[in-house]
């Protein structure tokens, strides 16, 4: 298993946001975490990259990563696209992509990867010298994904990639995510409000409620079960 989460608790000060969460994800897989607002989906991603206080264990390639600093976890090949996108609004699009490759030394490969990101997202190439903060919401989300790709990640953590985007842009973005997964084999853990969309992309889904995993199963089964959909997914 590439990622193993074992009995994970997470805390914001005194408040416990996650309660004994366990799940795993293997290389090349796409899995999704679903649930209502406040269920703890974002916290799971933040726990993996060491951005909240946790108890329990998280392993990557069999090695314990919980308790380590965010920048060290990222260097193992885990790219986190957080809520609010995690881009750098005051520098240019191209500098954002260079920042994404900050852990790498191979200049030629970095230049090739920047071209590859531009091939996936031609709009970014048109705006390469523009400050990232001046992009539209959809372009910024594409930049966030592009920035994450520059890490040459083995696992991508995506927090609400569809948030605030027009339906057409969302469809385009999810098509690109699927293509990236097929072409590069990068694994993805996706948190989504838009459950229907996430269930289409992912092969396996976990349902969170108030900090616990209450159900999990193949995405197709969960999407097909009307009572689950009504109870947890609201559609």
């Amino acid at each position, binding site marked *: 298993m590439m990622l193993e989460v074992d009995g994970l608790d997470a805390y914001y000060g005194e408040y416990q946001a996650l309660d004994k969460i366990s799940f795993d994800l293997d290389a090349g897989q796409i899995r999704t975490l679903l649930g209502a607002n406040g269920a703890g989906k974002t916290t799971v991603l933040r726990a993996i990259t060491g951005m909240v206080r946790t108890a329990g264990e998280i392993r990557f390639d069999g090695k314990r990563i919980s308790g380590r600093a965010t920048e060290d976890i*990222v*260097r193992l090949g885990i790219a986190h696209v*957080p809520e609010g996108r*995690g*881009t*750098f609004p005051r520098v240019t699009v191209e*500098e954002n992509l*260079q920042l*994404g490759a*900050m852990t790498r030394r191979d200049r030629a490969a970095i230049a090739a990867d920047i071209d590859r990101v531009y091939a996936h997202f031609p709009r970014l190439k048109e705006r390469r010298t523009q400050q990232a903060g001046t992009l539209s919401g959809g372009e910024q989300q594409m930049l966030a994904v592009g920035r994450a790709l520059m890490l040459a990640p083995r696992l991508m953590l995506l927090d609400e990639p569809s948030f605030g985007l027009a339906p057409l842009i969302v469809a385009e973005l999810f098509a690109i995510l699927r293509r990236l997964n097929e072409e590069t084999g990068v694994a993805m853990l996706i948190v989504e409000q838009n459950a229907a969309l996430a269930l289409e992309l992912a092969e396996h889904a976990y349902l969170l409620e108030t900090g616990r995993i209450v159900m999990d199963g193949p995405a197709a089964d969960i999407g097909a079960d009307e009572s689950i959909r009504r109870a947890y997914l609201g559609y």
Partner: protein
Amino acid sequence: MELLLQQILAGLATGAIYACMALAVVMIYQAIDHLNFAQGEMAMFSTFIAWQAMAWGFPYWLAFLFSVSVSFVGGVLIERVLFRPIHNAPVLSSLVAFIALFSIFNSGAGYLWDYTIKTFPSPFGHKPLLGNGLMDTHEAGMIGVTAVLLGLLYLFFRGSRLGLAMRAAAANPESARLVGIRVGWMTALGWGMAAAIGAVAGMLIAPVVFLEPNMMLGVLLYGFAGAVLGGLTSPGGAVLGGFAVGVIENLVPLVPYIGPAFGRELKLTFALVLIVVVLMFRPSGLFGRSVVSRV
């Protein structure tokens, strides 16, 4: 007319020093959101280190390099040892740490080198530049060295990966961690660079104000003024602000009616009043950006 030009050039020369101090203050402010009240005392201490090196027999430029290097390492150490452990502490804890740093350097210098005024040499001499009375060679040297320093910093921050990483770490620390940048070390590096810039400023102004433990008090005030005028969120603005304060300071005594009445004694007051007026209309400085936080 010649007097006016002379005062403007003299203002640019001292303004160069204010610009360096303003830039040093802004670099640390960008990284940790606090004003380093001890920046001037650090620069003064660096100048004493150069003085000591010369007393040991180092030639000027070797002493200069020695002081800049020691200051850089010292700045990094101050961040690692003193400010790293309290980076999440309340504002007042940081304030106390800055005051402690201020008095450690001030009384440390007094203890090691005593409080008597010392002369500090200028590598440029004090001859009239180009044979006319507009400017002397040391003033030209202050402007020249500052220009080279600012140019190098500009190239570093705009053109190098490390410079880009430092900018990113200061502007968006959480995003910077997510691309694997070691934000803590970037902050320490910023401290080291600020200390080194201060050392250059101290060594350039020392031949003018003479070397003693309190020599940077006024200079740092002008540096703060320049930084606030240009904008604490804008390094380029802070540099321009520093130059502007230097020129304004020198022009005040020339203003008809007001100048002779206030004389040289109140030029600092006049400069600060002007800045207050600017801030009434542009609270984040001429080139600064107001910080909007999402709630």
